[in-house]
Structures are given as C-alpha cells and as structure tokens.
C-alpha cells in the first residue's frame, strides 16, 4: 500500500521533471539526436541532472541492507551484455530517433489525446504486449524441451 502510494507520487514528480526539462517535446529529443545537423545538447544536461541525483541514491542503496518500505531490492543481477540486450536497444533506439518519443514522455503527452501521440502509444502498447506473448511462448517451449536447450548451448 505504501509502495503504491509512493510510486504514484514518484510518477507525478517524474512527469513534472519531463515537462520542466523539455523532454515531453519530441523536437528537443530529435534536436539532441540530430548530431549531424543543428545539435541541441539539452538532453545531455537532463541526463546529467538525473544521474547526479540518481547515482547518489544508488550509492546509498548499494550499502543498504534493504529499501525503506520493501523487503528487498529488486534490481537486475545479470551483467550479460548479449545480442538480445544490444539488439533490443538498437531497435528501441531507432524507433526513438524516428518519432522522438520514448515510453515515459509518450504516456505523459498522451493525456492531451492528440491523434499523433495516441497513435504512437497505442502502437507501442500493442507491440509491447505482442513481444511479451512471444517471449512467454519461447520460454514455455524452452522449458518443455530442456534437452534441446542443452544441445543448443554446446
């Protein structure tokens, strides 16, 4: 209950930050990604501001036995830099550079219900769900034939 309330407030602050920083305007994002054109470094400053605060909190978290209102930290333990990670990031990055939208700002902007933003968000949600189902199918298939998985790994 506390967790959900805290998450809700954090979401509001996140949305405020996106708006203040100009990241809800795709033109600012595209301006940053337009390295071969008229480069707008604003997003770099946004990252600096975000990382300065977050890295401080992360350092605290590294030494903390548990979070303040939960039993344990649920952070990724894997360090594997594999094709899935990089391939996924590449695909995401390309989509980001086409519309200047990533998930957070798109959701925030969607409240204005403009056809353009709603179209993006709808497509993103459909693709997200489809990918989840595809991943679930693959995971189930993998579990059904551990022999194949072991053979494939050698």
């Amino acid at each position, binding site marked *: 209950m506390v967790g959900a309330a805290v*998450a809700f407030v954090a979401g509001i602050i996140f949305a405020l930050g996106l708006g203040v920083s100009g990241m809800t305007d795709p033109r600012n994002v595209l301006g940053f990604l337009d390295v071969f054109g008229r480069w707008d470094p604003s997003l770099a400053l946004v990252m600096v501001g975000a990382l300065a605060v977050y890295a401080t909190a992360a350092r605290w978290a590294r030494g903390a036995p548990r979070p303040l209102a939960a039993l344990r930290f649920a952070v990724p333990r894997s360090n594997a830099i594999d094709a899935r990670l990089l391939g996924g990031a590449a695909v995401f990055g390309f989509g980001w550079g086409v519309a200047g939208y990533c998930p957070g700002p798109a959701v925030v902007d969607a409240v204005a219900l403009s056809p353009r933003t709603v179209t993006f968000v709808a497509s993103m949600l459909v693709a997200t769900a489809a990918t989840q189902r595809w991943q679930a199918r693959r995971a189930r298939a993998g579990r059904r034939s551990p022999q194949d998985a072991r053979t494939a790994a050698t």
Partner: protein
Amino acid sequence: MSPTPLAALGGGALIGAAAAVVLVVNGQIAGVSGMLGVLVRPRGHADRIGEPPSASTVDGGAQPAAFLTGLVAGGLLWLFLRPETVASVDSGLPLPWLVLAGALVGVGTQVGAGCTSGHGVCGVGRGSPRSIAATATFMAMGAVATFLVHHLWLARGAR
C-alpha cells in the same frame, strides 16, 4: 521550445529524484517500459529466469500501475497548468511512421529490457555495464534514425 540549461538540469534532477525514491523506498527500478510490460503481461508469464522477483510479483503489480497513473496525473497537471508542455507537435512525420516508431519502441524495450529511464537513468546511475552498453547503443541508433528519417528522407522535398 528548447529548455534553458537550468530547466534541463532542474528537470533532470526531478526525474532522477523520482526514480531515486522508487529505488530507495520501494527497491525497484523506475523503468517505464518495464512497467508497461507488467501492465500488458500475459497471466502466468514468469519473470526472466535468473532475475529477482520483479514488480509484477510484488503486491500484484500495484506499484507499476501506480507509477504509470502518476505519470498520467502529472500529464493532466501539465494540461491544466501549461498545456503547450504536453501538446502534440507536428514534426512532419506521417502517421504510419508514428505507428512504426511505436512498434519499434515497444518491441525493442521488451527485448532489450529497458528504455531511457530504466537503462539510461537507473542502470547508468547504478554503474551497470549492461545498461551503459544498452544506452550507448540506443543513443547511437537514435542518431542514425534521426539522420535517415529527418535529415535525409523528410527533408528531401526542400531540396
């Protein structure tokens, strides 16, 4: 309108603070794509093997839903206080390209397990080599896409 350096830094600090609260209090990564994934996750779909229990298993996924609701609430605040912040901009991108972009973002963030908040802020902020590699990759590809789509393709009529 491009933000002033102060607004960029300050807005970024707010973003970092919000994500930091999620980490410090709830012990979770504030990754929006992950939260959307939890929202549309098929029932019975297990977490990634080898990963600790994610937000989908803690309190039935209430936290991701709450954060996303907060994003929407924040958006509504902007809509009433300063609507131009969330107003759509016609960057000249045809609607089908928005569908494509959305699909690429949807697929890529699920396969790559993160986005600008999850990898770019949280992962890099934690010093995760995975996230640093992912962030470098999506930034580079973003630049490529912007060059191809906005510099070359969309600008071709102006020549």
